């Protein structure tokens, strides 16, 4: 079966984001960008399914500015077979992204669509679920284990608040990855070179006839309230005394 994987170019997870002084957003100029960490896990899982003989082809899809090509090349270097970039300089909301991905799915007819559980920039955790709803497919969110059973179904173990639960989904289905699903591989230098000649198709939202008008307007982006600087204590006794002073413990 064919696998589709969605990847997003986001601020690198190690960078501490800075809010712009005018309150219009987070400053992304000259900031290191990378593939969203959950999407790396999604690409890795797709590659492992191919290595197991479950998948025949992996197509990586990204929606974003021209530079999202770099993110797709990373996916290709990891092991994806080809890529599709839907280029847009607007900041697209999860609903618009899900609609575009649904169109790609209708065109490509994958057996499984793998996404990260959330992007570390907007922290929405919506796109996979919305995509599944639009396609009328089952969804295996927050997956920590994915076992494809023939061409009919997939068993997904999900990380839920109290522990783990396993659901069985009819294929085709949507899976979103949690952190513990796997350890993504590094692309080797020869594979990075090879990735440069793999096919990368360029599209626009208009090609798919999707209206991407935002539904939400960001009025303001602010720094969260700062905590007052604390104190360092010298001993366990002092620590206990100070905690008791606050009245939190008796």
């Amino acid at each position, binding site marked *: 079966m064919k696998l589709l994987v969605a990847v997003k170019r986001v601020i690198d997870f190690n960078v501490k984001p800075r809010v712009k002084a005018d309150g219009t957003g*987070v400053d992304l100029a000259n900031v290191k960008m990378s593939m969203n960490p959950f999407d790396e896990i999604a690409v890795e899982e797709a590659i492992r399914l191919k290595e197991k003989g479950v998948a025949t082809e992996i197509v990586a899809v990204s929606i974003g500015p021209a530079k999202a090509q770099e993110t797709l090349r990373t996916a290709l270097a990891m092991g994806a077979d080809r890529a599709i970039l839907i280029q847009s300089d607007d900041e697209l909301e999860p609903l618009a992204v899900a609609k575009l991905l649904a169109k790609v799915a209708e065109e490509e007819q994958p057996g499984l669509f793998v996404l990260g559980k959330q992007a570390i920039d907007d922290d929405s955790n919506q796109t996979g679920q919305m995509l599944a*709803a639009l396609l009328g497919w089952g969804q295996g969110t927050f997956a920590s284990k994915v076992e494809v059973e023939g061409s009919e179904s997939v068993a997904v173990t999900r990380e839920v*608040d109290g522990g783990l639960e396993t659901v069985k989904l009819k294929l085709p289905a949507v899976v979103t990855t949690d952190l513990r699903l796997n350890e993504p591989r590094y692309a080797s230098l020869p594979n990075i070179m090879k990735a440069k000649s793999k096919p990368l198709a360029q599209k626009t939202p208009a090609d798919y006839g999707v209206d991407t008008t935002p539904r939400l307007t960001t009025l303001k982006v602010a720094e969260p309230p700062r905590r007052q600087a604390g104190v360092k204590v010298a001993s366990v006794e002092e620590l206990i005394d100070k905690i008791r002073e606050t009245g939190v413990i008796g």
Partner: protein
Amino acid sequence: MKVLVWAEHEEGKLRDATLPVVTAAARLGEVHLIVAGSGVGPAADEAAKVAGVEKVLLADDGAYANGLAENVAPLVAKLMEGYDAFLAPATTTGKNIAPRVAALLDVMQISDILSVEGEDTFTRPIYAGNAVATVKSADAKKVITVRTTAFEKAAREGGSAAVEPVAGTGDAGLSSFVGAEIAHSERPELTSAKIIVSGGRALGSSEAFHQYIEPLADKLGAAVGASRAAVDAGYVPNDYQVGQTGKVVAPELYVAIGISGAIQHLAGMKDSKLIVAINKDEDAPIFQVADLGLVGDLFKIVPELTEKL
């Protein structure tokens, strides 16, 4: 405005996570709860007593037994014909269901709100809580998940809502529940605990977690949490994880032991009232948010602390 709230329940009991959502919903208008599941009459009766709830819709059907999003979302979407907003807690259940509902209604979801600024305006954290965005929705119907630590819990008593059965929408035939491994603990639940003792990679082993963290937690009547590093190293199960990708907590006292304080961890606990950090590295970022810090070897400090409390 009429607001439908997703009631989260477990083994016939209404979960605490529902209560802050009722508070958030009451800021918008008239609050109705939907209790969906199999044999959930007792949970609906509990829901009817929650202060501020005006009606409880009960969908008791085998198709909703395990809260499968594929079966539950069409039910909620259908009920939304009579409502202006749907609110769910930002738990794994709420996060699984609400975006599916939003897409069925063709509206954008607003995730993890921290406050209600007006009937269409909300604040929410972005970039692992390093920024707070104020967003205004142009959608006719709102679909929202609520950060449960950002709102007071509605009282469990004081309401007298009517329970009204509603017709189900059946089994979508897309998914089935296989089984669950739920960790049972005698300790308080992490997201609603008043005190949390959390351990990090510096513990070095699962045994050390049992030996050092748990006795301190028990002495304080606290829940036990962990950093991602401790979970990845297998010291504790993943549902202990506090952070951007784990649980978001805001207890009265958060004790971080052997946790360096990466931004992903801080995202999950920096709204705690009092933060205490114990770490041998005096430059660890955790000390930048800690109200009280003690620099030293946790293997000496923690037993002493446990003994002297």
